[in-house]
């Protein structure tokens, strides 16, 4: 339990980074997790091929919101090609917590939203493994 709700996760949940919206964003996308109703919207401002700014908005559990907060931190300065390479393991390494098959969907929702927004890839990042 202490592993799952370690301080870093709770801190990102309670004080999310990059929270909000970008008026006139280049990429905006929103999706939800049908299992639990967690919802995430992500706005991205580009400079050429590179993420100049990113904001997210949403409601959901500590895992999905902390994942969005931590992932958006990583996105700034990354190219769209870098984003395409991000996978399930990338998110798991970022969060650094053990996640069961149900909660992993919460953790992966922000990446799913970003990939759908950037590339129109709407599959769950772990779909190929199921």
């Amino acid at each position, binding site marked *: *339990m202490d592993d799952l*709700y370690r301080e870093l996760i709770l801190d990102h949940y*309670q004080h999310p980074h990059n929270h909000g919206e970008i008026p006139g964003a280049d990429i905006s996308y929103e999706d939800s997790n049908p299992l639990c*109703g*967690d919802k995430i919207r992500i706005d991205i401002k580009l400079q050429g091929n590179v993420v100049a700014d990113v904001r997210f908005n949403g409601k*959901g*559990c500590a895992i999905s919101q902390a994942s969005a907060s931590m992932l958006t931190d990583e996105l700034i300065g990354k190219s769209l090609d870098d984003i395409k390479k991000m996978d399930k393991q990338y998110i798991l390494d970022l969060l650094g917590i053990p996640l069961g098959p149900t909660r992993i969907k919460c953790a992966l929702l922000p990446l799913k939203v970003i990939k759908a927004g950037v590339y129109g890839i709407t599959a769950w990042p772990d779909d190929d493994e199921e």
Partner: protein
Amino acid sequence: MPINGLYVSAIREDFPILQQIVHGKPLVYLDSAATSQKPEAVIRAMDTYYRTSNANIHRGVYQLAEQATEQYEGARKRIQRFINAKSPREVIFTRNATEAINLVAYSWGRANVRAGDEVVSTVLEHHANIVPWQLLTQEKGARLTYIGADEQGRLREEEIEARITARTKLVAVTMASNVAGTLTPIQSIIARAHAVGAVVVVDAAQAVPHMPVDVQALDCDFLAFSGHKMLGPFVGVLYGKRTWLDKMEPFLGGGDMIREVHLEYSKWNDLPWKFEAGTPAIAEAIGLGAAVDYLTALGMENVRAHEREMTAYALNQLRAIEGIRILGPLDADQRGGVVAFSIPEAHPHDVAQILDHEGICVRGGHHCAMPLHEYYGIAATTRASFYVYNIPEEVDKLVETLAKVRQIFKG
């Protein structure tokens, strides 16, 4: 000592799964609204069927097949008596309550609902009693309207009158909400619907397992429920008035639902088999028969009294938590054994996860009732639900652990 007529400590011993240790803690199962646990008698009935009588039904002339048929049809008769249907022909086995409702929407709905007609449901419904009606009304160009609820999750009397009108063809309503717990004024809704010539489909998935239900006294046209929520295995039941079922076209086509099949046409079997295409869930139906026997022996009045007591206790303990929001009526007389709540500190998913580590099983999410959560402006709730095997000490554990959750999340 019996409490409200139930020897709960003896009942608990009938459920092998409850003896389990989870994460080093005794299992506290508070998710019976999702599915109930199964007593030894039900597990044994299915086991015995597979060991001694397994054969396909309605066909074979050998002894095994006759035994299987007799047991399957015997289960139907037990269920008929349990809900006081006039005839076993009015009891149809389905995959689950969802399929039972879909059967009505497909078969009765497509033949009787036309453009401009109205179907009335309520904001309390499970998705299973909303989506089939959306599909039907969209296909037919009919209109789907909803009876609203007050801040305690009680249907608004004036809207019952206002929504159910001469334009209404069908009313689809829950008897007990799976989230707010509300016991709806089912009798007056049915009376109102019949007064305007509409038929009534009752979602009784949270009612038949928990209280006496008499379909003739209710005078409902259709009533759907789930075996697995009433100590039985995964099988559903549709009750329908024979006058309707006789006139309805089949839902699924195939074996067993026919009298004759020719290359050009077919003739349908008698009730209830007209609606049971293909080999049904034989062992599960037999298991449900055993569950009905078990519940009958306990007495459904006693089951209701025990759950009322558990719910009153839970409401009382939970209300003491600062900032908690409890959905549904605050009076246990007006609700079933389901308590959904939210606490400001933590998302229900996180609450459920931390409770799991204490061996406590609850549900976190929207419980297949997104419209109800939207209606009350909450994304999700944590739900504890009770059944014959639950004891007040389990509510205490829930409340203690919620204090722990708040401790972790107070930031």
